[in-house]
């Protein structure tokens, strides 16, 4: 039924190869901005993959997923500020705090569904956001610089940008592989069954609440890991990391890339963040001969006017996102 050499698989393989070649390109051209951009893309792709586990497969639309990015990051930042730089301490703690937060949020919000679920997850994320603003010692509203990246002794040096990029890419692929196993396991079937028809799941004997809660915690923990990476990448953490619009971005990535598959959100993250960088430049260069440089720069500020309709088109005409589009071409 499914062959290995489909357009979709070829495309996904190409994306992975291109991601792996980014540092090579950066070294050859000296364009390190590109590598920094792609480090960010890879990290946020990981967050989107974790969100998709609960949203795409579990039907739990969390509108507060960026909170885990912030929690993971703040654990790193706060520990660094207090002089604890060992990654062997920082990272497990970042994961543990994220998991604990997910457990509390999940335990309460999974008692509701639909719009209420969305609203409660948003409310919790906003709560953490304002708590972070209140942390005067840790920069409050402005956030704080992290002067030293996580230390892993001689094992790995995160300050080396190429090493760090490959670590992020490795963790993204590992996360994706893990999520792929999860969704196809018995646990994953239980989760997908609850998305499809929760009432029937309970009628045939599944305690669905438990499974959904565990799934929610797994997703939160994985996103906490992305948060720890992000803080190390930017050497900075601020409440803006978990602004609700960031949660929205993660949802857009998953929807744009395709919620039906594990890899969809990776494609979505690459697409969305590339557009974010490329569209303003594209608009400026194509408009400046027509209306002059200054006016074109002004117009370029409104690049989202182009992105909006694009996203709309995907939602209206390509329900499966980019991934579904590729699979559809194969079929047709």
């Amino acid at each position, binding site marked *: 039924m499914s062959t290995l050499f489909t357009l979709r698989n070829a495309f996904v393989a190409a994306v992975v190869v291109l991601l792996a070649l980014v540092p090579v390109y950066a070294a050859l051209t000296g364009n390190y901005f590109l590598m920094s951009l792609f480090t960010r893309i890879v990290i946020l792709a990981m967050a989107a993959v974790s969100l998709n586990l609960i949203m795409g497969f579990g039907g739990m639309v969390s509108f507060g997923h960026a909170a885990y990015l912030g929690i993971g990051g703040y654990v790193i930042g706060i520990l660094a500020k207090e002089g604890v730089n060992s990654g062997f301490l920082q990272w497990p703690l970042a994961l543990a705090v994220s998991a604990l937060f997910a457990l509390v949020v999940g335990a309460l919000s999974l008692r509701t569904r639909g719009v209420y679920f969305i609203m409660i997850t948003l409310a919790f994320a906003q709560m953490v956001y304002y708590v972070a603003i209140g942390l005067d010692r840790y920069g409050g509203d402005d956030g704080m610089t992290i002067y030293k990246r996580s230390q892993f002794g001689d094992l790995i040096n995160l300050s080396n940008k190429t090493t760090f990029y490959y670590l992020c890419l490795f963790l993204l692929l590992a996360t994706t592989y893990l999520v792929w196993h999860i969704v196809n396991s018995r646990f994953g079937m239980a989760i997908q*069954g609850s998305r499809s028809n929760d009432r029937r799941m*309970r*009628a045939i004997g599944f305690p669905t609440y438990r499974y959904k809660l565990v799934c929610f915690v797994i997703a939160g923990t994985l996103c906490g890991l992305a948060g720890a990476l992000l803080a190390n990448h930017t050497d900075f953490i601020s409440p803006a990391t978990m602004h609700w619009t960031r949660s929205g971005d993660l949802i857009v990535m998953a929807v744009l890339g395709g919620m039906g598959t594990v890899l969809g959100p990776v494609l979505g993250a690459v697409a969305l963040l590339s557009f974010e960088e490329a569209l303003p430049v594209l608009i400026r260069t194509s408009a400046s001969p027509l209306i002059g440089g200054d006016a074109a720069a002004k117009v370029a500020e409104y690049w989202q006017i182009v992105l909006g309709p694009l996203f709309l088109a995907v939602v209206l005409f390509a329900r499966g996102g980019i991934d579904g589009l590729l699979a559809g071409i194969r079929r047709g």
Partner: protein
Amino acid sequence: MAEALLQVEGLSKRFGGVVASDGVTLEIPKGELHAIIGPNGAGKTTLITQLAGELESDAGRVRFEERDITALPTWRRSQLGLARSFQITSLFLDFTALDNVALAVQAHAGHSFHFWRGARGEPALREPARAALDRAGLGGRADMLVSRLSHGEHRQLEIAMALATSPRMLLLDEPMAGMGPEESARMVKTLRELKRELTILLIEHDMEAVFALADRITVLVYGRIIASGTPEAIRANADVRQAYLGEQEEAQGKSVERGAANG
């Protein structure tokens, strides 16, 4: 009298001013096929929903195999062997027929906290599921998406899923709703076979089917039991005639309510 498998005592539920079930007391011995009939709005589906544990009762107790299950959630009741089917088809539409039944098998094959091994490759889940599909006459449809199956096939799949949980008792909510005469006849045959192994509580509008299958019949009107007894006794009961069967007899014993709306 054989030992009672399901005992219902004074079960009540009201929605605002509407009394949906009013002190329902029932005793269903092991091996019996017990039908519940009543006009639309009599509270039949409410009763099944209460028995399945999806709806909390205002008063009354339910005992299953001598065990008080009044406070147990739906999934626990299913684990104890109380399976229900739905009047309005309730399936996993975006899954294949085999996946649907395999989920029902999985629900009763220990906990599902297995995160690594592919569930679709597990013979322990797939083989019983395939067998259940074959028994329901859906073997040829195993790999089809459920959303593409016909209405009659949905009804069959409903039963197949309930059976795949290896229940001790079935709560069937209008298994013949919306079926044509041929499909109904096939369903009657299926139920007759199931009756040999299982205790069944059947809600059904198709009177021919009910009187052909039931060992005992309970008549529910406005949430209250007005009669309970053998099919012969029910047929002869004056109250029942007046409340319910009258219209049927005028239609020369034909089921005028086949495929009627929710009861």
